[in-house]
C-alpha cells in the first residue's frame, strides 16, 4: 500500500498544472463551476492533444500514450480543479475510444482513434442512449435500425443528449432485431451516427439553470452505413454495460463543483471570526470539515477505482459505488455553501450588482444540483448495480 504519488506522477501533475495556469493566464478559459462537463473549445482540446493528453491510456499504435488510468485520474483531477473546457474531446476520450478499442472494427479504430487523439476537426461525440421512455431503463429503447442493403435506416427519438448541438458524431444505441418476442438485451446494436447526416434534427432543451446543455435528437430515416455498426449486431447491450463503467469511474462526478468548494473554503478562511457568533462559526467549521472528509474520501475512491482499472479487473460495481458516493457530495456542497453564505448567496452573476460576500457560480451550481445524481445512471440504478453485481443479490 502506498498513499502518495510517485515522483513521476507528481511531476506529471505539475506539468498539467503549469499548462493550465498558462492557459488561464492567457485567458483561454475562466474557472467556472456548475456545468456538467466544461464547455467546448476545440482550440483547447488541440492544445491538450499536442501535449499527448488525449487518449493518454490508449495504446501507442492508435496514437495514445499507453499510460495508466491513475495518470489519467491525475490529469482529470487537475482539469476539473479549474473546470477546463474539455467538452470537445471528453466523450470521445472517455468512452468512445475505449469502446472502439474493445469492440470496434480495425477500420473504425484507424478512422477515428488517431483523429480523436489529435483533436482534429469533426470528432466531437455525443451519446445517443436515453429515450423519452428509456431513461434509467435502457431496455425500453425503441429507436429502430433496419437493414437496407449495406446500410441501416435509423428512426426514433433520443433525449438528454448532452452536447448534441455541438456534436459531429453520435454514439447510438438502437434496436436491430425488431421481433417483439426478443428481449431488448438481445436485440440492440451500437452505431456511430453522423450528426450532420440528413434526417438528424437536434432540438435544444433548456435546463433548470437556464442553460442549453442537452437536447432532443430526432432521427428520421437516417441512413447509416454498416461499417459504422460497432461490434456485433444485437450485442449492443452487452457492450454498453462495459462502456458505462468508464463513464462512472471518473473524478468528474466529484469535482463538478470544485471551484465552488474551493471558493467556499477560501471564504470561510477569510471570515472575520470576531464578528461571528461563536456557535455559528463552530457549525460552519464542522460543516466544512465534513465536506472535506467526504471530498477526500471520494477522491480516494476515485483513485482506487482507477487503480483497479489498471489491474484489468471488472470495475462495474466499484465504479457504481464510487459514483454513488461522489455525486451525493456534489449535491451537498452547494446546499451547505448556500447555508453558510445565507441570503446573499442566492445572488447570481447576471445582475449589475454583486454583494461583497459572494461566491461566483454558487446559485447556478445549486440549480444544477438535481442532475448530479441522475446523469450517467441515477443513484438508484447505481445502488442496484452495487447490490446485484457487487454483492451478488438477486435481481428484483
Amino acid at each position, binding site marked *: 500500500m502506498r498513499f502518495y504519488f510517485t515522483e513521476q506522477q507528481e511531476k506529471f501533475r505539475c506539468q498539467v498544472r503549469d499548462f493550465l495556469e498558462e492557459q488561464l493566464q492567457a485567458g483561454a478559459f475562466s474557472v467556472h463551476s456548475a456545468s456538467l462537463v466544461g464547455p467546448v473549445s476545440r482550440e483547447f482540446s488541440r492544445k491538450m492533444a499536442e501535449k499527448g493528453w488525449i487518449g493518454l491510456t490508449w495504446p501507442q499504435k492508435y496514437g495514445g500514450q499507453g499510460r495508466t488510468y491513475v495518470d489519467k485520474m491525475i490529469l482529470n483531477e487537475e482539469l476539473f480543479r479549474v473546470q477546463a473546457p474539455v467538452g470537445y474531446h471528453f466523450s470521445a476520450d472517455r468512452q468512445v475510444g475505449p469502446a472502439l478499442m474493445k469492440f470496434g472494427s480495425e477500420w473504425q479504430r484507424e478512422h477515428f482513434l488517431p483523429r480523436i487523439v489529435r483533436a482534429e476537426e469533426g470528432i466531437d461525440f455525443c451519446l445517443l442512449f436515453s429515450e423519452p421512455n428509456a431513461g434509467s431503463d435502457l431496455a*425500453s429503447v425503441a429507436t429502430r435500425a433496419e437493414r437496407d442493403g449495406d446500410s441501416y435506416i435509423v428512426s426514433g427519438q433520443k433525449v*438528454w443528449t448532452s452536447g448534441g448541438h455541438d456534436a459531429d458524431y453520435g454514439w447510438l444505441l438502437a434496436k436491430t432485431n425488431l421481433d417483439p418476442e426478443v428481449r431488448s438485451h438481445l436485440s440492440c446494436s451500437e452505431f456511430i451516427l453522423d450528426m450532420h447526416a440528413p434526417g438528424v434534427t437536434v432540438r435544444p432543451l433548456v435546463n433548470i439553470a437556464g442553460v442549453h446543455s442537452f437536447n432532443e435528437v430526432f432521427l428520421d430515416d437516417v441512413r447509416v452505413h454498416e461499417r459504422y455498426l460497432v461490434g456485433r449486431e444485437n450485442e449492443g447491450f452487452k457492450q454498453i454495460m462495459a462502456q458505462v463503467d468508464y463513464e462512472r469511474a471518473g473524478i468528474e462526478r466529484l469535482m463538478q463543483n470544485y471551484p465552488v468548494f474551493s471558493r467556499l473554503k477560501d471564504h470561510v478562511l477569510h471570515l472575520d471570526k470576531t464578528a461571528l457568533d461563536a456557535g455559528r462559526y463552530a457549525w460552519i467549521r464542522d460543516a466544512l470539515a465534513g465536506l472535506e472528509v467526504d471530498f477526500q474520501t471520494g477522491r480516494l475512491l476515485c483513485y482506487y477505482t482507477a487503480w483497479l482499472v489498471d489491474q484489468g479487473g471488472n470495475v462495474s460495481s466499484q465504479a457504481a459505488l464510487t459514483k454513488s458516493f461522489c455525486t451525493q457530495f456534489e449535491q451537498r456542497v452547494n446546499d451547505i455553501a448556500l447555508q453558510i453564505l*445565507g441570503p*446573499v448567496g*442566492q445572488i447570481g452573476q447576471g445582475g449589475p450588482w454583486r454583494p461583497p460576500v459572494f461566491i461566483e457560480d454558487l446559485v447556478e451550481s445549486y*440549480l444544477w444540483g*438535481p442532475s448530479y445524481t441522475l446523469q450517467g445512471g441515477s443513484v438508484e440504478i447505481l445502488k442496484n448495480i452495487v447490490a446485484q453485481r457487487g454483492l451478488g443479490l438477486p435481481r428484483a
Partner: protein
Amino acid sequence: MEFRLSEETKLLKDNAGRFLQDRCSSAFLRESVRGETGFSTALWKEMAGLGWLGLIYEERYGGVGGSFFDLCILFEEMGKVLLPTPFFCSAVLSGLLIDEAASETVKKELLPPMIGGERILTLALLDEGGRCDFSDLKMEARKGGDGSFVLTGKRILVPYAHAADEILVCAQIAGPGQNGPTVFRTTGRSQGVKIVSLDTPLTGEKLFAVFYEEAPLSRDDILGVPGRGIDYIEKVLPRAIICKCAEMVGGLARVVEMTVGYVKERRQFGRPLGALQAVQHSCADMQMHLEASRLVTYQAASLLSEGMPCEKEIAMAKAFCSDAYKKCTWSAHQIHGGIGFTEEHDLHFYYKHAKASELAFGDARFHRGRVGEAMGL
C-alpha cells in the same frame, strides 16, 4: 385539539384554490414574471377585488376583518401555484408594520389604497451582507436642520422595490439627542435613492438592492414613534414567518401531488414507476414531511391568530418546513429524472422556492436556536 377547518375557512380555501388553479396556469405565471413589473397587474387587481389584500385588516380601512389563520390558508393556496406578486411585501410585511406602527391618520392614508391594490408597499430589511441585525442596522438617518434627516445605507433583496410606491426602512437616527431605530417611509424615485435589479435565479419575486446616499427625508416620513422601529418590526416578523411557512406548505403539497401523479403514470422496467419500492418509500417520506409541515405550521398560525404566546411554535414551524420542503424537492427531482430537470417542466419552480424560502427569515439552524432559547438552553 380540533383539526377541522371552520366552514368559512374551508370556503375561503376552496374558492381561493379554485380561483388560483383557474387563473394561474404555468404558462400564465411564466408570462407574468417576464413583464416589466414581474407580476400580472390584471391578476393583482382581481386579487384586491376579492378582498385578499385586506383579508386581515379592519373594515374601516377597507379590510375584511378576517383572521390571520385564514391569511395563512390563502398563502398555502398561493404557494401551490407559486404565484409571484407583491402580496407578501405589501399586504403582510408593510401592511402589518403600518398597522402596528402608524398613527390613525397614516393608517387611513396608506392602508385603503394598499388593500385596494392601487398602492404597492415594500419593506427593506436586509443589509448589504444579507443580514437583519438589529444591534447594528447599518442604516443611518442623520439629523439635519428643522426636523429633516439624511438617510444613508444599503438594503438588498428588497422585493418589488421598482414597483413599490413606498419603501419602508428602519434606520438609526443619529445626531444631537439621538432617537434610536426608527421606521421611515421612502420612495425609490427620490433624490439619493438608487434601485438596482438583482439576479436572483431562485426567486419568483423580483428582488432589488436599494441604495440610500444622503437621501433627504422629513419628520413626516417617520412611521410611528421614533426609537421604536425594531419593536414594530419584531411584532411583524412572526406573522411574516408563518405566512412564509404556509406558502412553503402549499409548495410542498404541490410537489407531492406532482410526484405521486407522475409515478402513477410513468412506466419503467415494464411497470409503473410507483410500483418500485424505493419510489414508494420516497413518496411516503414526502407525504410524512408534508403532513408534519402542515401541522406545525397550522399550530403556529392558529396560536398567533388567537393571540396566544407561541414563539417556540413559530420557530419550530420554520425549522421544520425549511428542511422538509427542500428535502422533498430533492426527492421529487430524483424521482422525475431528466424531465424534471428541464425548464419546460414546473418542478424547478418549487426546487428554487424551497431553497429561497429556507434562506428567508432564518434557516432551520437559526430557528432551532430560537427553539433552544425557548427551552431555556
